[in-house]
């Protein structure tokens, strides 16, 4: 084994990322739920001018609901397959 491989293997053994790093799904889920609620609310209270500007589509409503759905998807994924360590092994389906 070369010197580089020995050095990196030793560092890998001491590394703390796998054990201590939080799960990003929690952050994506949380942020998109918050954004989803804010933007959906802006859609519910949209003015005539807003609607006219967005080509008569209530874009805030639809975008907000989609963001809310994405946020809930990540939280649900985390809830269903929390993984053993914060960075989980074995559940890494490709995100949509």
């Amino acid at each position: 084994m070369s010197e580089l491989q020995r050095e990196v293997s030793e560092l890998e053994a001491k590394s703390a990322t796998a054990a201590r790093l939080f799960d990003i799904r929690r952050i994506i889920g949380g942020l998109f739920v918050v954004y989803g609620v804010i933007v959906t609310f802006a859609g519910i209270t949209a003015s005539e001018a807003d609607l006219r500007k967005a080509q008569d589509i209530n874009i805030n409503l639809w975008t907000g609901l989609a963001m809310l759905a994405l946020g809930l998807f990540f939280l649900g994924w985390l809830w269903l397959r929390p993984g053993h360590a914060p960075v989980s092994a074995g559940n890494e389906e490709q995100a949509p």
Partner: protein
Amino acid sequence: MYYLADGLRLPTNGLDYAILAIYFAVVLGIGLAARRSVKTSLDFFLSGRSLPAWVTGLAFVAANLGATEILGMAATGAQYGVAVVHWYWIGAIPAMVFLGLVMMPFYYGSKVRSVPEFLLQRFDKSAHLLSSVLFAFASILIAGVNLYALSIVVEALLGWPQWVSIVVAGFFVLAYITIGGLSSAIYNEVLQFFVILAALIPLTLLGLKRVGGWDGLTGSLSKQHGDNFLTAWGGTGIGDANPLGANWLTIVLGLGFVLSFGYWTTNFAEVQRALSAKNLSAAQRTPLIAAFPKIFIVFIVMIPGLVAAVLVPKIGTAGSDLTYNDAIPLLMQELLPNGVLGIAVTGLLAAFMAGMAANVSAFNTVFTSDIWSKYVVKDREDTYYLGFGRIVTAIGVLASIGTAFLAASFSNIMGYLQTLFSFFNVPMFVVFIIGMFWKRASMKSGVWGLLAGTTAAMVNYFVIYKQGVIDIPSDQGANFVSAIVGFVAGAVVMVVVTLFTAPKPEAELAGLVYGTTSPGMAEPPAEGDSAWYRRPALLGWGAIVLAAACYIPYSF
């Protein structure tokens, strides 16, 4: 360089600023929360080689999805039409798949921590030092240019003075990378990826509605620009005139082969994401998972560009004060109500900061582990290099802020420098590919291949093309040709130098050259990695087939 027209000021309100403020708070929060996971230099520079594939894969695509890329590719769409798909389907996917399927076993398996470190293992110190130093300079330059571009866009859209946004964005990037290291950079990239989608998808849909759907869009454009504007390959026969200034051969060889392989397979700001994956299978899947979103991102970038070309028929010409780069900001101003507008502004700012952060986090790794620990202060304990890495991160950000201010006063010089550095990627690829597949390639051939390829590409661009010795219709076309010239020159010089110099002892090549394996590669595959949808070959070939199929509607 990016210039936005005056009069693009967005009608932002408190709601939009609240959305922006939440994002900045989350960015800092990620940095602080990632802090406790940083114990060794490997945690700081490579996330301890322990991240799952979907995270590194999305970071891989997001690191490339900087705002200069988004605004620039929408501009290319407005200017050249559907031909912009070449930058994605032929100019990215094959190279990403090649990186995952062919090169990653050598990169990840040899346990190198950076792209230059691979050159040290395969060739010698001269190739290593040359590529490390050039990469360090180039990444600071690109980080600074990103910062400068951010300040221009923010000034035009929100009305902040340039120095305010340079300092504020610089501070946030400095904080979250110095504290949380690469994990923090990668997590922010994943977040940025989704915010950008949430910004561009509504913009694309509203844009299409505005011009009467896809049929309305294509109808207006073929009336204005002719049918070739809406095809990928129309008018690219050799000798035909087309706005791109390139023919099918230079597109396939120059863009699709040399330029794209050079960028995607040897640019450490990208490869670093794959090297931080938790095992070889995850590292291989990193660029492959990234390839699927990459195939479709072109639509949400190109369509706003095309819509802008319909709404402002004179865009980019002397008859309009709007440049091609204004395409996306223009649509944001015209179509997005407050709320989604805040998401879009946040997405653009996030993309600028992530583009800068990717380069800073690659810079600190190369500067610490390739330059400082190998040539300046050697053999110290790991905590020393971890602390040094944090200091270098701060220095790197400050240097990029300086570069951004320089760029504000000398933008022509910066554009020149960018072109110059872009020519360095090309011989990097030739040196890698020959080094990986030809055992005999000698230790000295690496550095000479790099020098010869870079010189040849530059001479072709700056002397032969710029002085008009041969006639190439556009800078873009000349870029493709220069890349091919650099590739061929690098390859020829490597072969010639190899014939006259000593090869690397065979024992030292284990795991670095095709047909050999690293001693450490015997680790058993992780549980679940044998599932069919995680097989690298299937993912890789699936991406290629999908990209090829995407060409069909735009080729006839």
